[in-house]
């Protein structure tokens, strides 16, 4: 197993110019006592960092995040639909997390993990750890979406990581002429946030109905059917967006042509749009792939169902979208719940104490209109080493839509609380 330096760097996504050619970058912060390093300051990472410190102040926690702020994907579809007009309410900073809990926040890009030496390399230097928690979210399998390069992303935004891409998609919708066609592509599951694409279709349709009534949205779904809350979305679309949402299942998009503003279904059928939202197939964040944390599928990271420790690399825990968490879906709430379970057990392992079995929750709301939302909720446990939903619990909103108004109100408090948890 030899790999030349250039392909190694390509693998970890680092630029050759940014790193010294020989040897390791300087140690950024020498370690004295027990230290956990957390990669990622999103839904999973912030909570893991905070809860480790809440459980044991003697453990030093260093959280490494490439940005100085984080924009929430949850509720970003409402921004795209014009229901909320400001991304600030979806944005958190890390100053209070640092001040309240003593989490050391390092703004840097992690470019490599050495699981043997227990060192992560960042754009600012190396950092050693006793245990590592990896919550990098997702990256895209661009080799499965021909033509979807960096330039194409600027013309056909994915908006599957919230921030500038979200703003771009919103702007394109606003600039589109009435009578235009929006095209959205949905990748094969598993991907980040199963109901997310359908909530987005709803929010775009909500905007079109109000502002551009002659327009429509074509949803090209690679899956055989809506992957989450299916009957509820179908009812919501029938009640509100008849003739606006054109849902086409089993249409896997494999290629885009940014110049022609077209996508190709299975390389055969061409579909053109005035605005095109390409949601590409996904896998664990690149750093997890580079560090050899992904399983046989080469996409997602298998973990122990109690500790979220990687089954590929000892001492490294993977949480959030990047990991395979059995029945727990790839959602922000799951990431939050997994982070706490992981934190509890990381502290136990560092202190040589007994670990604790998982008990987790997911709750996820999706908006259909500006005033109607539907939800899915679940409680999780472990059986024979696998994370399963507790039998006869959980499920989706009532089929008759009797709770959609109240759920739209509850969803706002959901966001407020979960973002406050992450940032204070």
């Amino acid at each position, binding site marked *: *197993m030899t*790999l*030349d*330096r250039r392909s*190694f760097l390509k693998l970890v996504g680092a630029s050759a110019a940014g790193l010294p050619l020989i040897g390791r970058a300087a140690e950024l912060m020498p370690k004295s006592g027990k230290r956990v390093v957390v990669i990622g300051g999103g839904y999973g990472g912030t909570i893991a960092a*905070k809860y480790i410190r*809440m459980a044991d102040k003697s453990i030093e926690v260093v959280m490494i995040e490439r940005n100085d702020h984080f924009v929430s994907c949850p509720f970003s579809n409402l921004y795209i639909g014009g229901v909320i007009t400001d991304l600030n309410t979806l944005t958190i900073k890390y100053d209070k997390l640092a001040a309240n809990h003593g989490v050391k926040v390092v703004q840097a890009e992690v470019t490599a993990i*050495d*699981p*043997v030496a227990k060192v992560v390399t960042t754009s600012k230097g190396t950092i050693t750890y006793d245990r590592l928690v990896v919550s990098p979210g997702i990256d895209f399998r661009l080799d499965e979406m021909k033509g979807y390069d960096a330039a194409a992303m600027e013309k056909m935004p994915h908006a599957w990581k919230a921030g500038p891409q979200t703003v771009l998609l919103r702007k394109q919708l606003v600039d589109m002429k009435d009578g235009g066609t929006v095209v959205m592509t949905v990748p094969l599951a598993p991907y980040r946030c199963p109901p997310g694409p359908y909530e987005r279709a709803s929010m775009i349709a909500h905007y079109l109905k109000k502002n551009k009534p002659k327009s429509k949205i074509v949803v090209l779904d690679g899956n055989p059917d809506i992957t989450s809350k299916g009957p509820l979305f179908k009812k919501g679309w029938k009640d509100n967006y008849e003739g606006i949402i054109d849902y086409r299942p089993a249409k896997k998009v494999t290629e885009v042509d940014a110049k022609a503003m077209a996508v190709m279904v299975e390389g055969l059928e061409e579909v053109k749009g005035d605005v095109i939202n390409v949601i590409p197939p996904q896998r664990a964040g690149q750093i997890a792939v580079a560090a*050899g944390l992904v399983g046989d599928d080469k996409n997602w990271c298998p973990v*122990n169902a*109690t*500790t979220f*420790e990687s*089954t*590929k*690399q*000892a*001492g490294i825990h993977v949480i959030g979208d990047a990991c395979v968490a059995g029945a727990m879906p790839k959602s922000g709430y799951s990431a*939050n*719940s997994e982070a*706490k*379970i992981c934190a*509890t*057990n990381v502290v136990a392992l560092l202190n040589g104490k*007994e*670990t*604790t*079995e*998982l*008990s987790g*929750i997911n*709750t996820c709301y999706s908006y259909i209109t500006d005033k109607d939302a539907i*939800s899915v*909720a*679940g*409680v*999780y*446990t472990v059986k024979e080493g696998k994370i399963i939903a*507790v039998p*006869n*619990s*959980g*499920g989706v*909103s009532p089929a008759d839509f009797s*709770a959609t108004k*109240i*759920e739209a*109100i*509850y969803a*706002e*408090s*959901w966001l*407020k*609380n*979960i973002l*406050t*948890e992450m940032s*204070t």
Partner: protein
Amino acid sequence: MTMKWRGWVLATGALAISALAQAAPPSPAMLSNACAGCHGTNGGSYGPTMPSLANQSKEAIEVAMKKFKSGERSGSIMGRLAKGYSDAEITAMAEFFSKQKLHPTTQTLDKAKIAKGASLQEANCGRCHIEDGKEGKDDTPAMASQWLPYMQMQMADYLSGKRKMPEKMKEKVDPMSKEDLDALLHFYASVK
């Protein structure tokens, strides 16, 4: 570089031994922390329509969860979630939250209504909602510093019959005006 990669391969072979060890059943904190995504860290809520659970009476949480579980009390997702827990787990969570410090909320409240509520509360509600609502008799929920929008939604459910009032509460509430009831909720929300 070659060295490093050999190291990686070695590490891949060495599976985590700790993974095979036995784990203790979910602790009260393990169970309760999962709720905090919606109810706030340690049950201190910042979302005006989701109640704080911190410092809530143990019995009140137990009763609420069991009613959610049986369907007697409706809640959009709480019924679905409560079904995921055994009675012993519910008790463990109730105990966990009852031990957390009161979570003082910052809310915009009407001063006149607070004053009016203050004058009404002792005679009308004080037998069960004791200590200005900081505590509750038996399974009566504590209401001090609870979110006003949450309490208003609950009161609306009581008045519409969607949520069943305890007999003693009904006796007091029935003759009261909506304004008086709202004043009372303002008062309890204001207690720190």
